[in-house]
């Protein structure tokens, strides 16, 4: 799949933002006043910024509000609702914390739950797609969740929680990769099933339908070299997980360490998310002889 910057930024940043909101809502930290303002600005900046980035991906954003209508079937629609609910609820919670120094526990818990639900529904946009076997696996929601929670934990200055979650993130990431590598084959989709011509013999593409390119090929038939992918996996794992985890363990109470850790994590998360898209193969590639 085409690793479009807008969707990478969207999923990474909004995940981080909602992750931070989760900690805030759950009361893992309870800032008030200016500190609260700082934390909530950061969380909202990330969450809303990410959501806005996602609209860059839209061909026709004028009608974006219609995206709220199909919550009964569409994960994207659900995400839209959940994110707005989470942001609104947490907004009241934030107002309380900033201006009144109070933390409305119930509201916070609800907001945290909605934040997690938002992240999960984002992940389900991808995980639901049978056409992209690497996404269509149970570790996908988990992956989005642990990324949101570990990143959120770092931002919420929870070094020990973050450390543990980062380890889990590493495991989930590995799991997602390794499981993902076999997913396409496991679906059983091949050029033979795609064309229904397998009874004759081995099928290959002789001529594509056009010598130029098209939307489908740009969007869904993105091929990333194996070597390149391996290198990026190492980078993603080191920067998103190993390095921040070690930093947090070594300097649990240093603010500077947290900044370095989050930056490293973010770069790693972007790399991991880039790979999440770039490595994902859409079954339509079969029709183009690309897999």
């Amino acid at each position, binding site marked *: 799949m085409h690793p479009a910057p807008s969707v990478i930024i969207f999923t990474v940043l909004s995940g981080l933002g909602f992750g931070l909101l989760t900690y805030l809502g759950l009361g893992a930290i309870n800032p008030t006043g200016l500190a609260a303002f700082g934390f909530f600005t950061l969380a909202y900046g990330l969450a809303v910024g990410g959501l806005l980035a996602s609209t860059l991906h839209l061909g026709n954003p004028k009608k974006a509000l219609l995206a709220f209508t199909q919550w009964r079937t569409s994960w994207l629609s659900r995400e839209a609702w959940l994110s707005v609910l989470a942001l609104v609820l947490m907004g009241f919670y934030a107002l309380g914390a900033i201006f009144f120094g109070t933390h409305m526990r119930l509201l916070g818990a609800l907001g945290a739950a909605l934040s997690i639900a938002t992240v999960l529904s984002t992940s389900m946009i991808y995980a639901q797609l049978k056409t992209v076997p690497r996404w269509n696996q149970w570790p996908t929601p988990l992956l989005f969740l642990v990324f949101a929670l570990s990143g959120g934990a770092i931002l919420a200055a929870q070094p020990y929680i973050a450390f543990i979650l980062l380890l889990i993130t590493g495991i989930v990431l590995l799991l997602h990769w390794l499981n993902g590598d076999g997913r396409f084959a496991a679906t059983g989709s091949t050029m033979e099933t795609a064309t229904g011509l397998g009874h004759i013999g081995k099928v290959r593409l*002789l001529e594509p339908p056009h*010598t*130029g390119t098209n939307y489908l090929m740009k969007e869904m038939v993105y091929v990333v070299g194996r070597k390149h992918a391996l290198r990026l996996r190492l980078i993603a794992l080191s920067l998103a997980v190993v390095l921040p985890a070690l930093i947090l363990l070594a300097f649990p109470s240093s603010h500077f360490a947290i900044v370095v850790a989050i930056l490293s994590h973010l770069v790693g998360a972007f790399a991991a998310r880039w790979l999440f898209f770039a490595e994902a193969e859409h079954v339509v590639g079969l029709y183009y002889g690309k897999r």
Partner: protein
Amino acid sequence: MTQPALDLSPLVSDEIRRTTCYMCACRCGIDVHLKDGKVRYVEGNRDHPVNRGVLCAKGSAGIMQHLAPSRLRAPLRRTGPRGSGEFQEISWDEALTLATSWLKPLRDTAPEKLAFFTGRDQSQSFTGYWAQAYGTPNYAAHGGFCSVNMAAAGIYTMGGAFWEFGQPDWDRTKLFMIFGVAEDHDSNPIKMGLGKLKKRGARVIGVNPVRSGYNAIADDWVAITPGTDGLFILALVHELMKAGKIDLDYLARWTNAPVLIDCDPKSPRHGLLLRDEAGKDLVIDTRTGKPTAFDRKGVRPDLGGKLRARGITHVTVFQRMAERYLSPDYSPEAIAERTGIPAEKTRRIAAELADVAFNRAIEIEREWTDFRGETHKTMTGRPVSFHAMRGISAHSNGFQTARALHMLQILLGAVETPGGFRFKPPYPKPATAHPRPHSNVTPGKPLDGPHLGYPQGPDDLCLTPDGQPARIDKAFTWENPMSAHGLMHMVISNAHAGDPYRIDTLLLYMANMSWNSSMNTGGVIDMLTDTDESGDYLIPRIIYSDAYSSEMVAYADLILPDTTYLERHDCISLLDRPICEADAAADAIRWPVVDPDRPGHPGVRGFQSVLCDLGHRLGLPGFVADDGSPKFKDYADYIVNHQRRPGIGPLMGWRGENADSHGRGAPNPDQLDRYIENGGFAIAHIPEDAQFMKPWNKAYQDWAVGIGLYDAPQPYIFQLYVEPLRRFQLAAEGHGHRQPPEHLRERIKVTLDPLPIWYPALEDGHADPVEFPVHALTQRPMAMYHSWGGQNAWLRQIHGHNPLYVPTDIWKANQFSDGDWAKVTSPHGTITVPVAYMAALNPNTVWTWNAIGKRKGTWALDQDAPEATRGFLLNHLIHELLPARGDGLRWSNSDPVTGQAAWFDLRVKIEKVPAPTQSHPVLPPIASPVGQGGARVIPKATP
């Protein structure tokens, strides 16, 4: 939310105008939908006899052709050097004055110094008429480099050939074999026909080195080695004859198989047919055992007849055929290695043919009377049919191969019988009923007759009194005596060499001669720009009519810009290449469904109308009225009012005082309106009893006379033995007053055999087959028409560049992988091109799509368009002359009988090279006279 309400019945258009497609030469009927006066949508005309509503990809993309930014907009006069593309727009009056000032003095002194050659236009009876009136012998259309082998072999053998001359009986045939066809001219009819066959469960066998397109859907595929079809066909003949599975009755009655041959080796008539005093072919009548004229009432010709006279036994054509084709040289085993076809396969196909023709014959109840006066209750059908095109004809043995195929059809009794091959009016028409070529020039006067025709022997050659070629293309000379369509591919190279003489002006129409329609493209470009010592171009003047900014435009001195096909009158005439069906005569028109509109520029004019104007300015007979005014206001006027013979004009429909007769009749001023009302065409159905056995069927002959195809019945028998060929052989053996040059004698003796033979492609004797082991071919893409499809915004997305397809063994041997490039070398040149793998390919063959590559700067495309950077032309590797041999002569790369360009004889070697940045050769860009294309042009119509 509920389902949105849809407008299920939107108005499709304000108006439909019905005309004829010209995205290719198939001439389908189209419904052009107009909205707000603009062309919005094009679909097939359901009533049209050619396409019955269907349309191919090109046809549907016509709107993008009509709106292409590459359209020319004004007459152009060259300002930069030839090939630069630098022009100045001039007015029409300037352009025509200039052309007249060039052409008039020539006509008065040496009309042969004008050479007028046209491409795939469909007004050859008109352009030929003009050239004849001008008086130059140098006129032809493009048939010589296209498929004259197919046409000439068909006409000499059976009085008609495939495509526009005839078609398989799609409704009845049970076994169809298709040789060397990727698309052909009758694109839609062949597809419609194949669809019909497949739905009926009829069997299709494809013979082609490449298994794509039609061959992909064929039930069986013969992966033949290029250039060897003749051998394969003769092996089928061998098998069928050996088993006696041939239609003896048919051969005896309708062909010259029973005709006696002069077998006296000492006679100057040796090998010619025996005739009676009235000049009729002689056969032995089985009832009397006596020699008799073949067409006598009640005669039963004896295929095995013999005539002993003065110690010589004269035998029949059939006996000679048996002697030749029963030879073990033509056994399936003997031909297996050369053709690449296992003996078992050849034998099985022969058996299938025999089985269908004889065990599954059909009989239809149609009483008919033959030319001998005998009435038959039924018609027996042999439901096998064949079609072939350039795969067999574009070889230097193509004439004889096509002859072999026609012989096979005839042996099976499958021509003009139900289920077999059927002629379309004005065919059948034997070679003898066609004109013979004319080339006698008188300055200031018309030529002594039509330029092109079917020579019957050395007397008909176009030679000057001192034996030199009379025509610039050397058509109808000893090099290729039966070059019925001329040799357009030799014009530029001969004119450049001044051999046989120098010309002054080259007038070209609709032919991209500096690019894909020439062999040796780079060489031709040099010839067009080459100068003498004084710096003058060796071909002093070039006038060209194109509608688009093609490669050729840059090489002309004066451009007469044509309209697009939706903006002009055209006439698809029975005098020329009509749209007839086996059951009907039909012709059609094009008319301006929209006006040509080139805002801000002097505009464009239909080329034929321009010729009418020029004809008047030059004072050509036939173009000047009695009072000195132009005889024809424009081409539309000519179409309606010109008469070739009294009552016979370009269009057959709605003639006569009452505008009610199809065929003969006085001109009708409303004729074009009648055509437009009828959807752009006219059709006259052949009565049921006249629909088959046409060459011999009285009812058909009478119908044809009635409608004006000919003036008297002209029944004839098929020429399995083509006597005119023998006449040339006799000359080569030393008989007669016109003698070939020494160096051609042997070749004429071998190749102009009156019975079909096979000999290896001439290139094999010149290029070393060991050094150049691979055959290199092109195929037409169904969705692209030569160079002119490439300017089409929709079609170029489908075919924007063309890889060279390479078969398994060569792919492996070179360790190719996807994305690789190869250097491809012929004895003549080298190109470097991208390769792609294809397994369904003859193991010694590589191929690519034809004419996708473009010159930078042309067709209003960007200079880095894929067509110009990855696309390529195979033509750079093909020379119009064969590689030099020891004899110091450069032989033409053409069929020795007809002069057909042997595109597909090409042999190459291939090696992997590092990928260059673009395909080679890279030619310098041309300045575009119309700018670059830019963004999409069609705005959406208001709903």
